[in-house]
Structures are given as C-alpha cells and as structure tokens.
C-alpha cells in the first residue's frame, strides 16, 4: 500500500518546486500562484480570488522555486578533526601574536552554460583573540535575493579538545537591509551564528550562493582576495568555465610564481586555479594605499576587450540621457543670461550639485550601474552619483557641450588601470569636452566650485562607455588645491597681540572648509572659530569674523577673523619670544622610521602664508630664524623671515606638493623633508627688551 503513495508524494514535491508567480503582500506574507493576473487595480490570484493592489507590495513574475534543503552534513564535511587541530597548532606557533589565522580559504566560482553561476566558499579559521571571536562568531553574506539564493551547506565549531558543535543550517536567516539614511537598495543579508566560539576554537563553514537569474549570462566577474589583516595558511580560488568560454584575469600582488592559474581543460569545462600558502598579514600604515591595491588578489573577466561592456553600458546610458521638454526648460532657465558656454556649464554644474539632493536608490543592475533617466532625476530632485552624471550630461547636451558619464574607483578605495574589462567601480562623474579642452566634473558633491572636483577623483582611471575608451583624471597642479593665509599681527609692549587673519582657498580644500560652515548652524560659527583659535593659542579672543560666500558655491569662500592674543609673547627674563600664530606643522605620515607601502595622499597641495608682524619699539631683535628651502622631487618648502625697518617682520612660506603618491623607495628622503619642514615651522623669534624700556 505504501508504494501507492510514492508517485503522489513525488508529484506534490514537484509541484512545490515548480516555478510560479509570487505575490508579496504588505503584511509580510507571500502567496505563490501559477499565473497571476493584474487588472483594474486588483491582483487576481485565482478565479474569484482577487487582492486589492494596496495590499500588495510586489509581484514577482516566475519567481524562484523554493530552495532545496541543505545537503546532509556528513556527505561533505571534512572528518579529519585531529588533522585540523594539529595544523591549527602549527600555524599558531608560526603566528603567535595573530588574533586569528585563516587556515582554509577556498572559493570556487562556476559558470554554467546557461549563464547561471554558483559560488561555493569554504572557510576555516582559528580564533586566537577576543576580537576574532566576535568577528568570526557570526557568518554572513550579501545577496540580491531576486536573482540569487544562498544556502549554508554546513557549519561547525571545533573545540581545542576535539569536540565538534554543528550548526543547523536551517538557523541561517535572510533579512532585508535597513538602508543607510540616503541609500536605498533591495539587498539582503544571509547570516548565521557560530556556537561555543572561544579562544582556541576553529570556526568552519561552507556556503553556496547561486545566481539563478543573471541579468546577462555573459556577465561573470569572479574576484578573490588571498590576503588580509590575518595570516592565511592556505587560500585557493577556482574558476570553472564552460569549455567554449574564455577567461581573462589580472593577478595583483600575488607571490612570485602564483600569478598564473593552473589550467585544467576538460570536455565540457575548463578550470583555473590559483593557490597560495602562508600569506603574511597586512600591517596597516598611516596614509597607505587602499588595501585592495596592495593585497594579493585575482580579478577575472570573460572579456578580452571592453566592447561588450561598452555596448551594454551605452545602451543603458543612452536610454537615460533623453532630452525632454522639462529638462530643456530647466536648462534654459538656469543658463539664461550666461555670458558664455563656460558660465553655462558652471551654472548647470552648481545646479546639479545643489538642487539634486544626494539620495541613492538602487532597485536593480539598471539603476545600480546606470542610474535613473535624466527626466526622473530632475523631477524627483534627488539622485546619486550616476543619476547626477546622467542628468548633467543630458543638460550639457542641450547647451551643445559634449559630456559623458564615466565610472571610476575613487582613489581611497582601489587602484585599477582598467586593463581588465569588468563591471567594477564605486563612483560616477562626468567627462566634459569643451572645444579642445577635455576635463572632468563631479556634481555629486553640493559644495564644489566650478571647475573643482572631489579629491577622491584625482589620479584615477575612468571607464567612458559612450566614447568607448578608458580615460585618466590627472592630479591637478598644487595651485589648483591652494590655501592662502594672510595675517597682520601687531604686538604690544606688554605682550598682547592683535591679529587680522584672512584665508582663501582654491579647489577641493575650499569645498571642505565651506562645507563645514555650510552644514554647521550659523549660531555655532563663532564657537567653531573660537575653538579653532583656542586650539592654536590658549587665550585667543575672537573679536569679530566674516565668512564670505558660505552658501553661494559659485563664488570663492574666504574667512576673515580679527582676534586678540593676550599674553602672547613669552617673557623669559629680558627675553621676549613668540612665533607666527598657528604656524606649527606636523606630519603623521612621517611617523614611521620605515614603511612598506607608499605614502598616499588624496591630491596635491599648496599652502601659502604671509604674516606681517609689527613689534613695539622697545623690542630689540635678538634672533630671527634663517631662510630655509627644502626640496624633493615631490614637494618643496620655502620659508623666510624678513625684517623690514626697525619694527616690522614679514614671514612668508610656501609649501607645495605636486605628487599624490610618494613611492616607498623615496620615503627616507621625503620623511627627512617633512621633518625639516616641521622643525622649521616651530622656529621662534627672539627679542630682548631694550634697556630702560
């Protein structure tokens, strides 16, 4: 009898796995139905069964079938517990001060012939400090559950005494992300907890992520890091491709002899394997390159050239850069009365910066990679970097200026020369062609004065799909990132001083200073300036101040302060000693005697100072610091004190750094330079009181 039930049971099982439409309701429940219909504001689930649209959040057409349960643990879990512990002990002896050691770090990417793909990851880590207990006590991964599903295949904690505590894969949960204030996306986190994790435990798990509905079966970009902040005993990446599909890769910072894949060609598939052992941990340094550019990693692509990606991006971008009457009207209004094209560009730039509020809404790869249509962004008055770039390019088109959105990595996140065609990047800005001039604008910010752009964009490669080329944004010359300080200081005989301070800026730094005052309530401006002065000199008293063009980003921003410095002059017997206010310079990037990595700044810099000091007649100059000039191929510094007449001293200095990156080989030279500058900046002027005064 029991056999009779078997076909029915199989049928029921099959039915539950069959594709169906899914209706996600606002109360959190879901309904699966074979052929959902929608008409007249109702979702029709079955004949006679309709749901009003306001109760429905989402209709998923041909939704993913329910996930199969995780396979039984015993089938795949390594059983060699004692071997694991022995190996862990050996590694601990090798790295006794590590907080954790990655014993096994094994990722396998498989592209199927239909474009679906699977990523399987096996992690095994030895916990040696509390920080790692916290970090490795939880496992998790990000996924787009509309196209991907994740499954915890097995997980366990191995105690130092050999006891094994298994995790029930069913306890892993998928949860929606809450977004981050200005960021909206549809991503989910799949996570699980590891039990009984203590110092000495080995944490181990294996999960699988399947992209069951790729937006484009050609798009497959495996990437893997073999190194991090912890020692790695063994790390392996495998990519399996259908035999008829090529794979291209870029191996970065891989150990000698490990950059090339071991390739195994089969009948149906080709496998590529990279494998390393005993990778030392990365030790952070101040102002070092982005970690992704110094760690061992391999990035892969199915494309040799950018053509396919250019085509794909071009299609999406062009669809979004459509001129509408609304955009035309907006452009006409904004540019009305502008004297020339450059002023029109500047006005449009400032408009997109200020009037399009930064809000990032990512619903799919379309908006994720290419943003929303220009008209939509203009209508909503919000958007993120790519939304703004699309709108700005569309607006420029109306005034006859050619512009394209370009995709890049900001210089604090990655360094990528873009030789390998991949869909990677974290920012989008605009390339602009004005006659013979080719330059870049970044309307993402709300504070940059034309034509300055965020420092994060300086010195990076860009992907320009519409021009079908890889471009490069140069680091601007120091003059384009300049701060100028002018001070007039009058010292009185009793040691008080009065100062008029004027500062003005060019480039990204202006944007930063302006932003501070723009986003600080006006009622707090005086406090901020007073604190700044008090930080420089304990008894400084702000008398009055003027901030020019805080809110008008089209005009230069400047600060004027008039302040007093009671007891400014140090009286040491008949000596009178003081220095230029706020002149001391420190360089945290020069802290280490030796470095492993380059010193990396976000951009170039120029600082110009002029301080005119009037001293009382009773002061007789005893010592004036000498003129100094320090030079390296990367930066220069000049400072000079000049006595003008009997009671006037003028200090001038110029610090100019044209390089963004100081190669580590030249660090000793550069460090010495910074130390010289720092020492010079601490110089004091000495006077003696004239007899009888």
């Amino acid at each position, binding site marked *: 009898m029991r056999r009779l039930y078997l076909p029915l049971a199989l049928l029921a099982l099959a039915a539950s796995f069959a594709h169906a439409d899914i209706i996600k309701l606002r109360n959190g429940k879901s309904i699966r139905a074979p052929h959902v219909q929608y008409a*007249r504001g109702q979702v029709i689930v079955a004949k006679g069964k309709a749901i009003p*649209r306001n109760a429905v959040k989402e209709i998923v057409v041909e939704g993913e079938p329910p996930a199969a349960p995780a396979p039984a643990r015993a089938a795949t879990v390594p059983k060699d517990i004692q071997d694991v512990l022995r190996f862990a002990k050996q590694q601990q002896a090798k790295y006794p001060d590590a907080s954790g050691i990655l014993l096994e770090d094994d990722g396998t990417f498989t592209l199927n012939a239909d474009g679906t793909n699977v990523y399987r990851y096996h992690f095994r880590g030895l916990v040696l400090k509390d920080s790692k207990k916290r970090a490795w006590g*939880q496992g998790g991964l990000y996924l787009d559950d509309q196209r991907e599903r994740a499954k915890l295949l097995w997980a366990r904690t191995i105690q130092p005494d050999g006891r094994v505590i298994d995790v029930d894969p069913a306890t892993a949960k998928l949860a929606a992300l809450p977004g981050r204030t200005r960021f909206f996306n549809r991503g989910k986190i799949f996570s699980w907890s590891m*039990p009984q994790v203590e110092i000495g435990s080995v944490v181990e798990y294996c999960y699988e992520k399947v992209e069951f509905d790729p937006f484009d079966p050609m798009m497959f970009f495996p990437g893997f890091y073999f190194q991090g902040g912890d020692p790695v005993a063994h790390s392996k990446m495998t990519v399996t491709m259908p035999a008829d599909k090529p794979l291209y890769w870029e191996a970065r910072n891989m150990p000698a002899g490990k950059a090339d894949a071991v390739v195994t060609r089969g009948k149906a598939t080709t496998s590529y394997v990279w494998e390393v052992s005993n990778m030392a941990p990365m030790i952070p340094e101040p102002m070092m390159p982005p970690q992704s550019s110094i760690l061992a990693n391999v990035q892969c692509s199915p494309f040799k050239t950018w053509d396919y990606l250019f085509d794909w991006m071009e299609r999406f971008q062009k669809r979004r850069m459509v001129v509408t009457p609304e955009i035309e009207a907006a452009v006409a209004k904004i540019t009305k009365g502008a004297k020339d094209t450059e002023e029109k560009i500047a006005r449009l730039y400032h408009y997109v910066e200020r009037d399009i509020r930064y809000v990032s809404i990512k619903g799919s790869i379309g908006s994720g990679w290419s943003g929303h249509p220009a008209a939509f962004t203009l209508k*909503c008055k919000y958007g993120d970097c790519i939304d703004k770039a699309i709108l700005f390019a569309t607006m420029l088109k109306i005034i006859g200026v050619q512009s394209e959105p370009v995709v890049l990595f900001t210089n604090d996140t990655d360094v990528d020369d873009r030789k390998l065609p991949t869909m990677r990047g974290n920012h989008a800005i605009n390339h602009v062609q004005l006659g013979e001039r080719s330059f870049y604008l970044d309307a993402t910010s709300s504070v940059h004065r034309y034509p300055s752009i965020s420092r994060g964009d300086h010195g990076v490669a860009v992907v320009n799909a519409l021009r079908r080329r890889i471009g490069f944004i140069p680091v601007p010359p120091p003059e384009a990132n300049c701060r100028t300080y002018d001070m007039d200081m009058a010292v009185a005989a009793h040691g008080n001083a009065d100062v008029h301070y004027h500062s003005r800026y060019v480039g990204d730094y202006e944007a930063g200073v302006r932003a501070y005052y723009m986003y600080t309530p006006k009622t707090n401006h005086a406090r901020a300036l007073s604190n*700044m002065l008090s930080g420089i000199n304990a008894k400084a008293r702000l008398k009055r101040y003027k901030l020019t063009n805080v809110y008008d980003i089209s005009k230069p921003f400047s600060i004027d302060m008039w302040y007093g410095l009671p007891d400014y002059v140090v009286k040491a017997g008949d000596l009178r000693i003081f220095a230029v206010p706020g002149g001391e310079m420190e360089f945290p990037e020069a802290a280490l005697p030796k470095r492993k990595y380059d010193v990396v700044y976000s951009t170039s810099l120029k600082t110009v100072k002029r301080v005119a000091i009037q001293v009382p007649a009773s002061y007789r100059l005893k010592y004036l610091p000498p003129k100094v000039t320090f030079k390296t191929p990367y930066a220069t510094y000049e400072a000079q004190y000049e006595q003008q007449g009997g009671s006037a001293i003028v200090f001038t200095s110029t610090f100019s750094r044209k390089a963004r990156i100081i190669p580590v080989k030249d660090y000793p030279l550069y460090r010495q330079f910074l*130390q010289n500058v720092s020492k010079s900046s601490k110089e004091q002027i000495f006077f003696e009181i004239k007899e009888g005064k």
Partner: protein
Amino acid sequence: MRTTPRHGHWACAALVAACASAWPSAVQSTDVLYMRKGEEHVGRLVSIDAGKVVFVDEDHGPLTFDAKDVQRVELGKSRPGDHWKTVKDIDDPVLLQALQAQVHAAASGYVTLYQETTARLAANGASTFTTRTIQKVLQERGKSAANKALYYLSLRANATIDFGRTITPDGKVFSVADSAIQDGSVYTQFPEYQDLNRKQCALREVKPGSVIDYQTTVTTRQTDVLRPFFVHELFAGSEPILKKVVRVIVPRDQACVYQMKRCGDVSVETRAMPDGTRHYKWTVENTPELTREDDMPVTEDMWPRLAFGPTARWDDLARVYAQKLAPLTKPGDRLRAQVEQLVAGQATADGKARAIHRFLVRNLRTIPVSFYVHKLVPRDVNAVLETKYGNDLEKSLLAVAMFREAGLDAHLALARPQGRGELMVGVPSLGQMSACLVRVRAGDRTYYCEVVDDNRPIDVPAGGLQGVWCLIIDDAKPERVKTPLAPAEAEGVAHESEVAIGDRGVFDVRETTRYAGQASVGMRNLRMMKDAERKRYFQQMVADVHTNAELVSYKLSDLSDLEAPVVVKLHYRLMDYAVRAGDKLMIFRLPGLNYSAYGVGKPDRMHPLDWTTRDRSSHRYTVRLPKGWRVRYVPSPVQVAGAPFSYTSKFEAKGDTVTFEDESRRDVIAAPASQYAAYKAGVEAMAKLAKEWVVLERK
C-alpha cells in the same frame, strides 16, 4: 521628445488611460517594473494577462512586455493626499494652517511648523503611535529633514508611512515614492536578534522653501509590563519647533501617570470621551533651536520632556519581572559544574566574583544588540552558557545565576544610562530602562558590573552607568538605587617622564603611563593587535609628540589580565626637539605635556557643563640638562581653584635638573553654566602652560 516604446504598442494607450482613470485614489502612486535583463521602468502597472505585462512608463509612455522578460513589479502604495497635485488641491486643515505659519528663523536649517504625536492604548492592550511632522526647509543643511527614519520592533509591531509629501515653494505637491522607502533589520548579521527594524524614506523635490508633511504609525499588537506602553516625548529639537502637540488616549478605566520636566507653565488638558476613552493633551509652542556647546548635557536633560504610562510601582515591576525571569535562571548541571570549576581554589567571595566575571566577559561572546531593542525576556541561562554567546541581558542573567550558584548575593539591575537622560522616576516603567548591570555583593564589596566588554574589569563600570538610577530585580526585596560614582582616583591617567637632553640636543625620554578606569579599558584593546601593529601604534604616538621622534622601545603590562593595572612604558628619542636661537640659547617644551584650550573658545555659555565620570590626571617630569647649559627661565607655577576642577603645577630648576609636577582633578560630573568663566580660565591656564618654554643658556 519621446522615444519609441521598445515593446510597446500605442493601441493600448486608450485602454491604459481608461484603466488609470478608474482608480482616482491611486493616481500618484508609482510602480517600478524590473526586467530580467536589468532595465527598470518607473510608472504604472496596467495589466498582467495572457503572458503580457502592460506598463505606462513615466518617460516612455505605454509599453507592453512579454511576461517572461519581466522579473517583478513593485507596486506603489496609495496614500491619503496622493492625488494632490498643487497646493490648491490640499484640503487638510492642519496642513493648510501650517502652510500659513510665519517663520522667523531664517538661520535655522529647517523649522518644524507643526508636530503631533498621538499615542493610543486600546482596551485589549494593543497600542498605536502616530506622529505627523510638518517642516519647512530653510537652508541647504535643512534638506536632511527630508530623509526620514522610523525604528520599531518588527516581531511585535508594524510600522507604516501613512503619507509623505513635499510642497514646493511654487506650490507643487509631490508624494513619496515607494522606491524611496526601505524597511529592514538593523542587526541583519545576528539572526536571532533581528527584531529592530528601521524604516526609512526620502522625500522628493526638497529645497529651501519646501514644506514636508510626513506621518507614520507604529502599531504594537500587545503591550504589558514586559512590553510596556510608555510615552516619552521631547518638546524641542535641534531646530526650532513652532508647535508640538502630544495626545495620549487610553481606556477611561486605565489608571495612568505622567511626569513633565522643564515644561514651564505647560499644563495638560484631559477629557473623558463618550467612547470610553480618556484623552490627555499637551501643547508646547515656539521652542528655539538648540545651540550646541562642548561638554553639554544630553538633550533629554535640557529640553522640555514628558513621560506617560499606566500607573505602576517600581517595586511591583521589579517583582513581576523577577518572577518572569525566575524559571530562566534555574541552573542546570553544566552551569553548576562550570561554577564549581571557576571558584575552585578561590578562598574569598571577591575572588569567586572576579573569577566568574572574568569567565563571562572573556569566554562568552557578546552579541551587541541590547535587550532594549530586542526583548525583556531572554533565553534561558543554560542555553546561553551552552551556545557561549548572548546579548547584555542574557549574559547578565547568566551572571546572576552563576554568582548565586557560587553563594554570592547577586541581582539583575536594569538601568537608564546617563546618555538617555535622567530617569523619570514618577512614571514607573521598564520601558525607561535600556542598560543592564549585575549587582553582586562579594564580601565587603558591592559591584555594579557589566559583563559585555571583554576589556572591562569587574570594578570599572562604564562611565555612562555611574551615578544613575537602576532597578534591582528581586521578588523579595526590590529596590531602586543609584549606582555609585567612581572616585576621581579611579579614573584618569598618570604620567612620569625621565628626560635626558644630550649634548647634541637629542631628548631621550623614558615615559611611564598608568591608566585607570575608562582609559584602562580603552588601552586594553591593544592586546588585540599584533606585535608589529602595536609597535606602529606607539611609533605614531611618539610622533604626535614631535615629527622627529623615534621610538626606541615599549613595554606593556599584561593587558589580558583584568586584575593587573594598565601600564605603558615608552622609551623614545626626539631629534632636534629644542629650538635654538644661535649658539647661546635653547628653548624647549615638556615633551608630551599636551593641554589644549580647544572647547573653551567661546567667551560665555548657555548650557551647564557635563562629563561622564570624575577624573584625576597627573604628570611628573625630571629633565636632565646637557653639559655646559644652565636654566635661564622656567614658567611660573599655575594654580587653578574655584573652577569645577582644580589644577596645580610647579616647575623647579636645581643644578642640572628641571623638575615639573602637576595634577588636575575633577570631583564633579556636572557644573552650572555660571562656573564656565572659571572653568575656561582654568583650562586656558593649563593650555598656556603646555605652550610655555623652558629657556636654557650656555654657561
């Protein structure tokens, strides 16, 4: 210009128009259609039928797709007022009145024209909190008002955005789009602790001059002692509020209590309604924007504030809660064995307490999701011990069970940290408590300890939990007590430096620093670093003294030992540290004496001064001069008194040695604004001293 629809056919346009007009209440809601190949369309779903999806794209007009090419459609929700297109369509009197308001706060980022919160407790214990906020954006920075977020506990409550709209300066009305609404768990990485959700949205068309009108409702299915109905409202914000109304509606026979602070002459209006409810209403008008100052109290302790809840007694709450927890704290065999093992060999009660505490902070991982945003009823203590992880409440309850198993008197203590403002004592509710401690008596010592931080010894409670009210959870002897405030000696840092100035002006510095209290907890984190990282940390630390510093060596006490004091010994050299004026004069400052007057720049102050803990810090320097040089000048002594803190310093030059000693001490954690002048003068005197020079001259 319109583009040709990709799959569309214009024939369906008439149908689309006809269909769309059939649902006037939903006119402005926005749907988003996602294609399998990654494209998306914003507009309006018209139909799904016979393998075809018809959709009106906002920019491209009607489109028809094969259903197999469509991945999903997110349906926009229709909300009241979505059909308003211009200000002329608005028929809501509250909004119309708010739009008429005269605003005289042009310097503010935004102004709240009107805010109303209605909290309703139903007879069946369910509750709803509805808040409507109407704000006018005045400055660029005020645009942030258009990014809204709402937090709620998703396992027992629902949250809805009732409506959200922007009225632009030129009179257009834009409703919130569902694509700009997101709802998800704040703690996604902790699968068992994902209750707290954040629902956020961004409103459209926001610029200076725009008015935002936004309403949310949180509905809680059941309230009781452990899921309390508790209303807590502040009548001020960081920006000005023209009018704020709080209404509370409860069943008429529900005894309730409320407490107000700093509300001046604001009084409550109460009314018994025919529907069997009682209404309470408070109205506060024209509260100014907050002017931020350094070291100011938390806003809860500065602004007008209201607490409201069902009548209760603190003792009763503690008893009920204790009874609820009792079954969860029964020790199992494993727990007993664990305690036995931990206290074996510990002769004193204090030793036992420390051993158990050490085990809990070091061997059980802390899940950083407080009970306050999870639940008041935790897992059974034996389960927590079994999994070796738990949140603050779970670990605290396990601590209580283990201490008791060891024969110690221990209780759970729910507390309201300093950072959330003073406890509203007159409104007993567990909803006011957001931290937990364990009170354990060990011999003649009583600890109020935390068990969540693996760097925190049993006798160093977090600063924010010192001097605060807590409720001792006990069935037999419940009580409400204040946690002790640690003495100044238990906090702060003491430095001792031996400095030798070499003939070439190189400063050889041997510095010993002892860290106490909160500072010691922070320094213990260094144990997580690798040796090379620690070395770099100290290299950077000495480079803060001077760019030319070179670390010679460093030595740390055993940071893993929670009982041992935290001591750091540094040996470093400062090249070219002294400033010279020709060959005859040399001046220097004491290396590492680094006081700053930053924070006291303002000449006067509006708000009281506020700190988390008491503090005592000191420096001692012995500086040996190079051969052939003598002291020409040392700075004068500094003595600060009459401020909320005291400070004394003294330089002394004797032979070839200069010595310096100082001590700053603050025995209070709050001071009125009237003491600011003295405080400022004291801080300035310290900062000035740190910039003073010792002048040497060649003999």
